[in-house]
């Protein structure tokens, strides 16, 4: 039984493994070119949204296939998702919390360093 499984895994690796990785690589290349092309189109305030969205898709592809999250235990996926989730929470709070500060205080402190 276990031998059979092992053989199957190896077979899968061989069949889907290398070929699948090349397909993933090509997909990442295409998305990189799409990012560059999209940057020449003016979506107005959505420019950054488009760029980050494509980057998120690329990162998800790398995580799923190159980093094998697809075949990893759920606890591993939870670990990765938790990291990105908390960064997302932090960034969204930054976006909400950008009013009411005296922005000039920061450059002033810097200017004391002779900048």
């Amino acid at each position, binding site marked *: 039984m276990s031998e059979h499984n092992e053989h199957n895994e*190896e077979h899968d690796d061989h069949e889907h493994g290398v070929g699948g*990785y090349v397909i993933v690589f090509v997909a*990442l290349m295409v998305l990189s070119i799409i990012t*560059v092309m999209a940057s020449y189109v003016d979506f107005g305030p959505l420019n950054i949204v488009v760029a980050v969205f494509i*980057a998120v898709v690329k990162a998800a592809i790398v995580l799923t296939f190159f980093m094998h999250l697809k075949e990893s235990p759920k*606890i591993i996926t939870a670990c990765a998702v938790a990291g990105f989730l908390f*960064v997302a929470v932090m960034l969204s709070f930054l976006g909400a919390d950008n009013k009411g500060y005296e*922005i000039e205080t920061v450059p002033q402190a810097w200017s004391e360093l002779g900048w």
Partner: protein
Amino acid sequence: MSHENTDAPPYQQHFFENMQQQNQATMFGIWLFMAQEILFFGGLFGAYTWYRINYPEAYEAGSSWLDPKLGLLNTVVLIASSLTVVFSVHAARQGRKNGIILWLVATLILGGVFMGIKTVEYGAKYDHSLIPGKIFPENPFNWHGTKEQVEAAGHADHSTGLKYYDKASEGTKGNIKPGAWASDTYVKKTQVAEPKGIQIYYCLYFAMTGMHALHMIIGAGIIIWICILAHRGRFNKEYYPHVEYFGLYWHFVDIVWIFLFPLLYLI
């Protein structure tokens, strides 16, 4: 000692019941490290976001001096290096020692190419007086360009493919970047951009790409170490955690660049 599982392979640590437990524990440990790395770079991206909200024009103006062609080239090189790492892990799974070494060396070479291109880019920043502050007293940050650059305004800059933009003159339209960047609104915005904000942009540029590059240098060291271990025959079909976990680390470095490239070069 006597109750130890005598069937345990030599690479199984004595405090693990079996290899499955060891593999799960080490895998979880390395992913906790990955989560920490995500949060670490998250802090840098947080700084980027906050200053971008406050200096949007400065970011646009600052990024106009980065060459997206070099950035894209580095993206291709780095994703290709991720592919070679995956091939190395694949070879490890099949127990092919030479495959591990071959693909890791390919990764090392691609990493070297990336760093080489990065060096060219950093050099161009020095030439353009875009190193923040007075780190180089003879060439402090100067958004208006050095004397020679102002004199050369309008002439092609062969080192980056961009043309010098003389901010002191009346917004010479069309000589910044091909395409959307050189629109009328863009030039107007650039004229009001705060040089201080642009310095902040370049601080973040060097901090983020520098920290990314530091990760690659550390990764290069790990590659050499794993190659030596592989050469000594430390790995087999069932035991290759170094290769696999290095792969995770390298892919993460790749993911960081996937975000850095559009945010720094393409905005």
